């Protein structure tokens, strides 16, 4: 077994046996996120089930009866007749019947509709908490009333304006949206295309941010642990090149970070899936409008992400060299890497070319923006921008790697020191 492989395997073993890493970075995302998602889903589903709705009909005329019939015909409403004749009694009755929502149809409801004088109903929500299910139940009652409202409007229009399409009276203007993508006219509104692209361009920056932060934290932990546990000096006097030590540590860290990032992404996607509901079939697909990513695009995107991860690893190693313990290393890495990674999140909401010039150049200078820029650029087949980003990242990575290698081949790996809030220690003699 090569010496590099020996270090790499040791590194993986050491990290994967650390309960803080295994529980905090692998088990928690795999268990916590899906569990949270399941809880949300349960809350939403319970709110989405049949709604128990109490009704007090003080009008008892044609339209109030029609309204109640419409509610009865709604499959997601279970109607409960309340006998109370005023609101105070109704609240007590609703509470004892454990109803969350009840409505009161006041006297004169039918005549107000007939006179087109604007009829009113009163809705009461008995909120016991501010949970998701309370909010959703109330919103769903509103939605049902809106639907009945439209039915009633249509009935009135049909009655008073025979031969006229009630839809045209309710909505006299309808808009039809078209989008021009790369010179092609697509019969869908831009919002829909933006939604489709964002699902693609959202994943890359989020995944990348998670990966880079994981990689950087793990690399810093691995390096600082050597210092904290006083194993670094021994390691550096072994008959193995310093570059192999650096490469072995980086490789082992990268593999474990990748496992942690995959765990995080799997857990997070389970969590997110709790909020996704059937949206029906999409009227377009990205391939037809030339926004799909080709195999070449995927390769370029992969190279860009790989370069960014390598840069993060090297940067974290350099930073960790200056610290004496794991906690300081993790703090220093977070303070340094976060400002380099976080601005790229802007690109989830805006294209690089639509940003103000100064901001655009700031993002282009930050190394970790480039994979995110590449994610939308490969969809638009703007390979020049992607290759430029890769070239920049390669130069940045080489410089950082060179500095890391230099630090490892000199005494600075032992003597470099940044102290947090403490007086600089005197060097040991």
């Amino acid at each position: 077994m090569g010496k590099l492989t020996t270090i790499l395997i040791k590194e993986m073993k050491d990290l994967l046996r650390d309960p803080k890493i295994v529980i905090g970075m692998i088990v928690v995302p795999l268990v916590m996120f899906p569990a949270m998602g399941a809880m949300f889903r349960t809350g939403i589903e319970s709110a989405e089930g049949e709604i128990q709705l109490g009704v007090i009909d003080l009008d008892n005329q044609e339209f109030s009866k029609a309204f109640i019939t419409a509610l009865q015909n709604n499959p997601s409403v279970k109607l409960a007749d309340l006998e109370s004749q005023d609101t105070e009694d109704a609240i007590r009755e609703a509470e004892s019947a454990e109803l969350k929502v009840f409505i009161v149809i006041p006297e004169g409801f039918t005549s107000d509709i007939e006179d087109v004088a604007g009829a009113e109903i009163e809705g009461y929500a008995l909120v016991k908490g501010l949970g998701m299910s309370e909010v959703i139940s109330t919103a769903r009652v509103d939605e049902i009333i809106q639907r009945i409202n439209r039915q009633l409007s249509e009935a009135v229009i049909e009655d008073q304006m025979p031969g006229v399409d009630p839809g045209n009276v309710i909505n006299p203007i309808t808009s039809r949206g078209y989008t021009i993508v790369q010179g092609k006219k697509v019969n869908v509104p831009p919002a829909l295309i933006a939604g489709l692209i964002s699902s693609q361009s959202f994943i890359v920056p989020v995944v990348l941010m998670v990966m880079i932060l994981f990689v950087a934290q793990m690399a810093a932990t691995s390096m600082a642990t050597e210092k904290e546990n006083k194993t670094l000096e021994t390691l550096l006097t072994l008959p193995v090149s310093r570059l192999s030590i650096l490469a072995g540590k980086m490789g082992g860290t990268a593999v474990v970070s990748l496992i942690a990032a995959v765990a995080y992404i799997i857990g997070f996607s389970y969590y997110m899936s709790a909020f996704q509901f059937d949206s029906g079939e999409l009227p377009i697909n990205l391939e037809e409008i030339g926004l799909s990513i080709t195999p070449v695009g995927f390769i370029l995107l992969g190279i860009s992400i790989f370069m960014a991860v390598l840069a993060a690893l090297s940067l974290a190693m350099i930073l960790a060299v200056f610290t004496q313990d794991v906690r300081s290393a993790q703090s220093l890495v977070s303070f340094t890497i976060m400002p380099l990674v976080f601005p790229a999140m802007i690109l989830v909401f805006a294209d690089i070319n639509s940003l103000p010039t100064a901001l655009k150049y700031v993002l282009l200078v930050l190394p970790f923006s480039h994979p995110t820029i590449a994610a939308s650029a490969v969809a638009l087949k703007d390979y020049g921008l992607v290759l430029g980003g890769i070239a920049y990242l390669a130069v940045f990575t080489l410089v950082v790697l060179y500095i890391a290698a230099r630090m490892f081949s000199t005494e600075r790996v032992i003597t470099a020191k940044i102290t947090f809030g403490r007086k600089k220690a005197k060097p040991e003699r």
Partner: protein
Amino acid sequence: MNEIEKGIRMTAIEVENLVKNYGSIEALRGISFAVGEGEIFGLIGPNGAGKTTALRVVSTLLEITSGTVKVFGFDVKEDPEEVRKKISYLPEEAGAYKNLSGKEYLNFMAQFYTEGRNVREMIETGILISGLEDRISDKVNTYSKGMTRKLLVARALMMEPPLAILDEPTSGLDVINSQEVRKIIKGFARKGSTVLLSSHNMLEVEFLSDRVALIGEGQILDSGSPAELKERYTAQNLEEVFMEAVAHG
């Protein structure tokens, strides 16, 4: 064979006018000493005298400000990788990988020095030296301080390096464990290996070393065999020798 070649054959370590500065602090102020092959050479002096810095320079961890240091003829500045093939360094405050078992730790280290069946033999030697047969499969984080130190001593000696550099080898050990480790080091040197060690425990160094150098404030105050030094200063032990050397120095 000319004089230089003869010197290389016979000398394991050659330190000449070694100066080491940390910024404006002078840790070593032009020290010189030589250690012959198969010799146990001890650096003694109080805390902060420069012992650890000297050992770290010989171990290729620290860079030289001026002067030269050669290990078996290889310059630590020019050929650090060759030097590392000849040495095994035990730092004073060393630790082992806590999430590995004692055996896994020895296995990891052995793979840098040999391969195949020899790795297993080297591990067996390490286990024997450590005296941790019953606990060798347990994780290092379950070991006491003494057990960890014995594991580290075993790691440093199991590969029978031409030169073992031991910084305070019995640091943190109780009397019984300290004696055991001293015996292990003595036995190791009898096989022909060279040992450079440091300690502030002068009685320990007197027991172990063929020759010693007294070091104080980054300078070598005197050197010789313990017997020579005791005679020179008409002292009972090295502690008295050191006090006299400081008073005269």
